[in-house]
């Protein structure tokens, strides 16, 4: 059996979606594997949802984009809509549940509402939920696993808001299960090394963030 993993990550511009993808792909390359990373680009990028596609495999990768991901990540309300088509029955779906509240509602309760029908509140350009706001975003019940990681809260309360995306990075690599922590740390060093040199505290902060992300997924996978 060939090892391979397909990852799609969606979030708002500035959330660091592309940096996470870049670090994952670089770590794959570090391990001598085939790695392919492609951002969505184009005019929609200005003010739209930012999406990154990463694939890591033992042999030459096919098309740069794919239909269903093994790990699919949504980091904002509208990123959920954008990324849902990539969720299949083998997908581990990871979302930041400090930004997106996803009610566990069964199909019967919702009746005819389906994922193709966008709820009116979904069409407002909200970044996160207002307090008390109820949300009809439905995470497909057909996903293999749905895991909420409160990355924003963890970063804000325990670390620093800046390392929010590294918490997600940790979650993604643990869910993907194809890369060693060492190569991810090396890739982080390559990507962020210059920032670490200016502010050495940042290095430890990033490593802690990575660990927190990994830990969250480990716990969730044990529980399920």
């Amino acid at each position: 059996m060939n090892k391979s993993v397909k990852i799609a990550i969606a979030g708002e511009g500035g959330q660091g979606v592309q940096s996470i993808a870049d670090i994952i792909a670089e770590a794959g390359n570090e391990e001598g594997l085939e790695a392919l990373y492609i951002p969505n680009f184009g005019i929609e990028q200005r003010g739209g949802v930012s999406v990154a596609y990463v694939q890591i495999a033992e042999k030459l990768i096919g098309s740069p984009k794919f239909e269903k991901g093994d790990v699919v990540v949504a980091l904002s309300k509208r990123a959920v809509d954008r990324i849902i088509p990539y969720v299949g029955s083998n997908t581990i779906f990871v979302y930041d549940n400090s930004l997106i509240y996803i009610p566990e509602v069964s199909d019967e309760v919702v009746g005819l509402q389906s994922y193709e029908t966008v709820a009116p509140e979904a069409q407002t350009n909200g970044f996160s939920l207002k307090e008390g706001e109820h949300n009809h975003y439905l995470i497909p019940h057909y996903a293999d696993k749905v895991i909420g990681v409160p990355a924003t809260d963890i970063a804000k309360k325990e670390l620093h808001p800046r390392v929010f995306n590294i918490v997600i990075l940790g979650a993604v690599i643990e869910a993907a299960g194809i890369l060693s922590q060492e190569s991810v740390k090396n890739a982080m060093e390559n990507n962020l090394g210059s920032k670490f040199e200016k502010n050495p505290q940042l290095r430890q902060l990033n490593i802690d963030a990575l660990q927190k992300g990994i830990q969250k997924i480990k716990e969730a996978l044990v529980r399920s």
Partner: protein
Amino acid sequence: MEKPIQEEKRVFMTGNEVVAWGALAAQADIMYGYPITPQNEIMHYWTRLAPKYGKSFLQTEDELSAGFATIGGVLAGKRSFSATAGPGNTLFQEPISMAEMMRIPMVVAIQQRGGPSTATVIYSQQEVNMTTYGGNGEGLRIVYSTATHQELFDYTIKAFNNAWKYRFPAFILGDGYQAKMREPLIMYNPEEKGIEMVKPDVSLGKEGVPGKDRDPVYLRNAYSMEEELFEVLMPMIEEYNKVSPEIEEHFSLGCEDADLIIVSHGIVSRAAMAAEEELRKEGIKVGLFRPITLRPFPEGAIREICKSTPNILIVESANGQLARLVKEALFGLPINMQAIFKPGVGITSEEIIKFIKSKKTEEIIAK
């Protein structure tokens, strides 16, 4: 001055970066460019590399000018190149026609974007017609359609060499996906690998007094009589046809015992390759034919394969631009043709598999 790549090394970069490094490895002297997405970074990376390695760069006022300036550089004896996409490629057709007429070896990298017109800045395979047969002429060109970053590097080097060897304009035909994605490849110095780089020669501004020390240089682009043009053009066309078999390249997989041949080029052929492998696992005998040169088209090779397997499925991110070349190559053979045409949109292996499975056997496999 730093020397470009000496030893082989594995790198991980975007396709645009690869083209810039490939041009450097091919000992290009100067790039003339005008920005257009998704090829901008070829220019950006080249301007970063140029001062380190004693190379030059000129940004012109538009693509027409970039094309003609590239020709000027070649006439001055410099390995010159440019890069463009989409509507920029349209404007490039005029200087490219001139290069064809005057046998000027210009090299242009093209990263296809959606069309017609401005359309998208993202991706397509819709510049096949224009790159192979654009301009007012006969398509006397060399067009390499790449699929991987390794090929972007390899064929950038080859485009320079074959442009100067055969004196026809040469193209590296990539696309927005290849331009923007990152994947690993091995970079090398072609001379270390025994690839001898064809030396450019000076056409204009040679030493000595014309008519006294040497013959005058007479480059012609305009003819007053029909017969005059015909006399110049026919030997050119004959020469193109004669060298075509040396230039033609293709890749095929599993065609020997296949019931159905998927025909695709460029990045789509990677999806086709993955589909071929998956379907084989399920016992469906599928093969893959991929033209690497779209011009000259590997006609002999595809005819040979389709004589024994007449069932083909053409898959491309355009509305039949590759199909037109394939049909012309297969003219006269009894062919059963199916197609997936998705102009301006990427194609995955899953889609190809789904399409093949959705068909009844007799639809795709004629007896």
